[in-house]
């Protein structure tokens, strides 16, 4: 249900779920028109509950090592694209006709976070088909939406399973689901629960009342830190191209032979570039609230300048030659440019940036970052030539 920490917004539009193709027809042939049910042989299913709408897979609030391992992999971007559970109705514990129904996404990490937050509770979980994307992202996209919810209520046979007509949705599903429309079309009333699944027990025990803290989306250190792996993974591909180029260009010019230069100056160039990536993908997320400026690019520029100064200081270059001065100037331009660019892209991961704001920021930041990067690169090449 909750989505605060699920990495997942997917990058690819075309996600294929081979495992799903059969799920709509996998009703084991019992009875008449079978509701659309999730498969019982998914590895986190521990049994089944028999209901008037057929047998519903039972899950536990206890996560297995497999679930934890899946989370770790998804955080590093491995298998993230198809980290999903079958959409449909699940039973947590031993629910009956009066038990609450919680709605979630079919992203496995969302699903796991929901069930693991509810030890000792008996309730129903309705997983919407969000194509394996977390609630918030899917709500924005509309897959965690009014239409899907209304149809999933229908196809799961929920009205035969429970006697009440009430659903609890994660608050972050609200951008996609219009509660009043769901009520009108399905007869089920929608309550928006807390943002974090971990607040659900308190929310339910308080008679479905959320405190104002439960309703505010934070972006605390831990929430930012879990995003770092994927930020780093994203930089691997461009780095594999850029780093060798810098290394080889470092061989050109300079005082010694080609390879001696490359090993000396080229290696430094690679390290300087990697430090810019660490600045943008690791330090920036960690220090976000404490960096000066509101625009992420501004934060990145300050941070990049600090990183560049640190790198040059550690290099301990002597400033006696023009080549060394130009080289230093080049990195004072390139490193902040790269760091600011990565910082700017972190807007998509943050929980509080608006599209209008991002467009405003990009108007000045993107030309500046490109300009600094290109001119820094040109100056560096020139410094090689005169070295």
């Amino acid at each position, binding site marked *: 249900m909750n989505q605060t920490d699920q990495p997942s917004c997917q990058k690819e539009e075309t996600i294929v779920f081979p495992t799903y193709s059969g799920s709509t027809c996998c009703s084991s042939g019992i009875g008449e028109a079978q509701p659309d049910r999730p498969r019982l042989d998914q590895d986190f299913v521990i049994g089944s509950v028999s209901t008037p709408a057929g047998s519903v897979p039972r899950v536990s609030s206890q996560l297995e090592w497999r679930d934890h391992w899946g989370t770790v992999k998804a955080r590093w971007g491995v298998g993230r694209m198809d980290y999903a559970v079958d959409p449909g109705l699940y039973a947590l514990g031993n629910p009956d006709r009066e038990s609450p129904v919680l709605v979630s996404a079919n992203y496995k990490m969302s699903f796991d976070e929901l069930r693991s937050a509810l030890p000792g509770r008996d309730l129903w979980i309705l997983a919407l088909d969000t194509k394996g994307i977390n609630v918030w*992202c899917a709500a924005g996209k509309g897959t965690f939406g009014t239409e899907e919810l209304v149809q999933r209520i229908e196809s799961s046979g929920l009205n035969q399973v429970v006697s009440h007509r009430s659903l609890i949705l994660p608050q972050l599903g609200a*951008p996609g689901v219009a509660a009043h429309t769901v009520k009108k079309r399905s007869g089920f009333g929608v309550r928006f629960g807390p943002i974090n699944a971990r607040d659900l027990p308190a929310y339910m025990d308080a008679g479905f009342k959320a405190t104002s803290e439960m309703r505010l989306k934070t972006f605390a250190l831990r929430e930012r830190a879990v995003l770092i792996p994927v930020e780093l993974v994203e930089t691997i591909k461009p780095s594999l191209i850029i780093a060798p180029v810098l290394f080889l260009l470092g061989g050109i010019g300079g005082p010694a032979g080609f390879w001696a230069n490359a090993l000396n100056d080229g290696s430094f160039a690679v390290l300087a570039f990697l430090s810019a990536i660490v600045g943008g993908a690791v330090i920036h997320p960690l220090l976000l609230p404490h960096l000066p400026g509101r625009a992420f690019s501004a934060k990145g520029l300050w941070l990049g300048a600090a990183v560049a100064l640190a790198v040059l200081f550690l290099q301990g270059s002597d400033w006696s030659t023009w080549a060394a001065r130009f080289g230093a100037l080049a990195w004072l331009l390139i490193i902040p440019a790269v760091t600011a660019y990565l910082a700017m*892209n972190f807007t*998509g991961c943050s*929980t*509080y940036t608006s599209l209008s704001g991002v467009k405003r920021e990009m108007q000045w930041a993107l030309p500046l970052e490109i300009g600094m990067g290109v001119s820094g690169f040109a100056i560096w090449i020139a410094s090689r030539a005169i070295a």
Partner: protein
Amino acid sequence: MNQLTYLKDVVTLKLDEKKCTGCGMCLEVCPHGVLKMNTGHVEIRNRDACMECGACSRNCPFEAVSVQTGVGCAAAVINAMLGKTDAACCCTASPECSPPAANEKGCCG
């Protein structure tokens, strides 16, 4: 860091107080406490905290709140500029991708 705030004076959030009945639904769904109740109808308390997710406008039964929704995501904007509507977006994987808009192309899967 109780509340992080992005840029000033850019948000497209609009409230039509004449249509608002004070039902409070928007207060419930807003993840940033942007709105507050004022005798009988809602008003905007902290406009700059709005991230344009559209939860309020989607859930207003009286169409009193409007906002141009979208993903606050530079990567998605760049991809859109490059014409890659299906490519990487925000949350290059992250969970926290700012909510992408339903009608916004190119984000989040």
